[in-house]
């Protein structure tokens, strides 16, 4: 799945921002517009366990992306997704609110006695204002159709490091460099 059908040279990876996920991918999906590149598959009818996503969802590194629809209970073959906290707004760089992001944690077993895992899901949906204003224009279409689409990012909890930290040892060396520059009192 590393090859996303996008003809890019080595080194390019699918690392979308929240804004891109919502504005470019989710919005187009929900509005039935073609996504270009059409890389995120629709797994709406397939409640996979997170470890089953490989080969089915779009994989990049240790993250998996897929479209789905909102449901009250996200139950999979071997467990369920439990909501974590409330909704976080997704805003554009121009501070316009375009969507909402919700965290889930995966539990194996049956609720409420499931066992917590390290699998996390971020579920992005279009913000209600955006969807309702749109759907009101489209009379005759139930507004749920539009707002039910979500795009999900699943990963096993890990550091959110993006590589702009030095290795620990480098930090030590870097700090020691300062010792060369001690000012001596005269």
């Amino acid at each position, binding site marked *: 799945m590393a090859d996303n059908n996008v003809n890019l040279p080595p080194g390019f990876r699918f*690392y979308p921002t929240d804004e891109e996920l919502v504005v470019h991918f989710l919005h187009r999906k929900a509005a039935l517009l073609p996504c270009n590149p059409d890389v995120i598959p629709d797994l709406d009818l397939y409640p996979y366990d997170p470890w089953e996503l490989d080969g089915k969802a779009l994989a990049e590194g240790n993250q998996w992306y897929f479209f789905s629809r909102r449901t009250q209970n996200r139950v999979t073959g071997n467990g369920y997704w439990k909501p974590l906290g409330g909704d976080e707004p997704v805003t554009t760089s121009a501070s316009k609110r375009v969507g909402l992001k919700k965290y889930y944690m995966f539990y194996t077993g049956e609720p409420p006695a499931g066992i917590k895992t390290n699998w996390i899901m971020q579920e992005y949906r279009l913000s209600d204002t955006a969807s309702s204003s749109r759907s009101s224009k489209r009379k005759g279409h139930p507004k749920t159709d539009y707002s039910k689409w979500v795009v999900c990012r699943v990963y096993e909890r890990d550091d959110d490091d993006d590589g702009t930290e030095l*290795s620990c040892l480098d930090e030590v060396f870097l700090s*020691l460099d300062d*010792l060369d520059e001690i000012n001596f*009192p005269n």
Partner: protein
Amino acid sequence: MPQNMSISVNGQSQVPPGFRFHPTEEELLQYYLRKKVSYEKIDLDVIRDVDLNKLEPWDIQEKCKIGSTPQNDWYFFSHKDKKYPTGTRTNRATAAGFWKATGRDKMIHGNSRRIGMRKTLVFYKGRAPHGQKSDWIMHEYRLDDNTTDTNNVSNAMGEATQEEGWVVCRIFKKKNYHKTLDSPMSSSLTISETGTSQWFSSNDEGTLEQILGPEHVGKTCKEEDEANNSKRFLRPIETGVNNGLIERCMKLPNLECPNSMITSQTCYQQIHHDQMLRENDAANIVTNQMFSGDPNPDYHPETSFNDWAALDRLVASQLNGQTETSKLLSSSFSDPSMAITALCSPCDGDDAQHIQLLQPQSSSSSSNRPYHTTQDYNNEFDLWSFSRSSADQLCQMLQYDRPTL
């Protein structure tokens, strides 16, 4: 699905939405730099050539944009030229400052074969030696075809021959270390009570708690998160961080400060004492991690391996407040009695303990007694000899009343 996305970077059209240039070190070396040195055409003009003497880091940021999406790091090719026709040093000065190498070069492996080296440089504003350190960091990658030996290669060797030619570089602004994770994800990480109480009872009881205040005990912070999560080291661009760590530590030269053992002890105690007051939560967490992770006091190299990451963090955090430390050292230099006081500080035991844990290879009997506190200063020197020259300076500072160095 349409495949007519023509992507030209740095120019008119763009990388498709959602995609970023995040090459692995192997891709940088094996694909991009290898093509560059053999004059092969690279499909897209993703990595541009940059004259490091002409562009400041913030200019590179502009020049090496890929598409219009936000970036955390920037890539470019650079041709290294000698600073002097006869010398081996590279000229990396710009109008506003200069790039200064730090640390040791890191080997880069691909398919379990050594494929290149990575040098880390820091941008200083101003002119050497009075530059002001910035947050701009450069990783400079060079191909390394000559050496087939995958280990035991001294990095210093062959350095001279590597100082010319094309390199591929990545610059980024360093994140700062001491930040807490506020996301809900981190809430499950807490300090185990056992570890904390062990730590306190093995020392001056309650002292640290007084220093720290109770709110610091049990604080969740990034250090601990990472200590718990050794997976971080499997991230593509940093793969192999651990590989050379122990080896490098073991290879450290001994501290050559023969006539001033007690003095340099003193000055490091002073550093620790000072740092204790601010950096203590990090130290505490790390220590806690070690003790709670392995209640058996016997040292198992395998199980303690992950703790190296934590210790690394500890050392970095202990050293991070260098500015203050420097000031402090300066002041202790003018007032020798301060140094004496530091020697008697209640933190002696703590420091020795940290340092002892940094030396799991020393298979002396003391390894079996993690709470033993007095006899491991030599280990401490091993550690601190990372910067032998710096340590020498410190020794001299405290010994002689020298106005300049």
